[in-house]
């Protein structure tokens, strides 16, 4: 395989950075998914085992981790729809930059709705 020279920015700008963020978030989400199936599989061991492990998801540090996970999923979801529109909608490539800013806007709105609720549940002292 030919090697790319180090330190290049490909073409930069919205196209490259949205692609990079899509790749990084997808990679991270995949490894969470592996762990998440394993922790859920503990329901097959015993209620106590499952509750003990899911209990660790409720501490504040994990709560912040879940916020980061949801932030990654929401970006990957909206940007994935953008990628699909770029590929299948005849006007998609023309509007790919505008659509990225719509993705960012929807991400901000979704997180503004999600974060207070989730952090309230995590830090609210139930």
């Amino acid at each position, binding site marked *: 395989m030919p090697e790319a020279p180090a330190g290049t920015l490909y073409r930069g700008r919205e196209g490259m950075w949205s692609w990079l963020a899509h790749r990084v978030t*997808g990679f991270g989400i*995949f490894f969470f998914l592996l762990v998440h199936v394993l922790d859920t599989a503990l329901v097959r061991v015993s209620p106590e085992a499952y509750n003990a492990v899911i209990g660790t998801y*409720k501490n504040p540090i994990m709560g912040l981790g879940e916020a980061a996970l949801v932030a990654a*999923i929401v970006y990957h979801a909206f940007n994935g729809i953008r990628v699909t529109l770029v590929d299948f909608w005849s006007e998609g490539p023309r509007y790919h930059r505008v659509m990225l800013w719509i993705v960012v806007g929807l991400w901000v709105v979704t997180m503004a709705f999600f974060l207070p609720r989730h952090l309230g549940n995590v830090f609210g002292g*139930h």
Partner: protein
Amino acid sequence: MAETTPLVIEAPRTPARRRTTTRTNYELYGWVFMRASGVVLVVLIFGHLFLNLIDGDGISAIDFGFVAGKWASPLWQVWDLLMLWLAMIHGTNGVRTIINDYAERTGTRVVLKSALYLAFTVVVVLGTLVIFTFDPCPAGAAADLLPSFCPR
């Protein structure tokens, strides 16, 4: 009598032809699958996140009884099964692409992709078995940890 392939003698300077024996459309199917499964996964995962993290008391309400209550309904069994399979295939194909992009030595690619496919198989088989063999009222478990519909 067996048919014989006619011997073709190429004209001089005919460009070398690419091997066509391994040309398939699997990369195209994978490309289509990423988009199709992605759209379905947005619905499945947003529904999952809403019910588990936003609705009610969110993460602090999740325990064995919560999971058992959900899987008492075939809707959520099918929902979670579909989510498991689509997300695992989507994610595995994505990581396969990343390995192909960055692992430059053939040996490294073989090792990484073998580990990836092993993880895929273990997680999908385990997850599927858990959904189908789940017992919401295991014998001998403390009653206060079980969903309310279990016989006391």
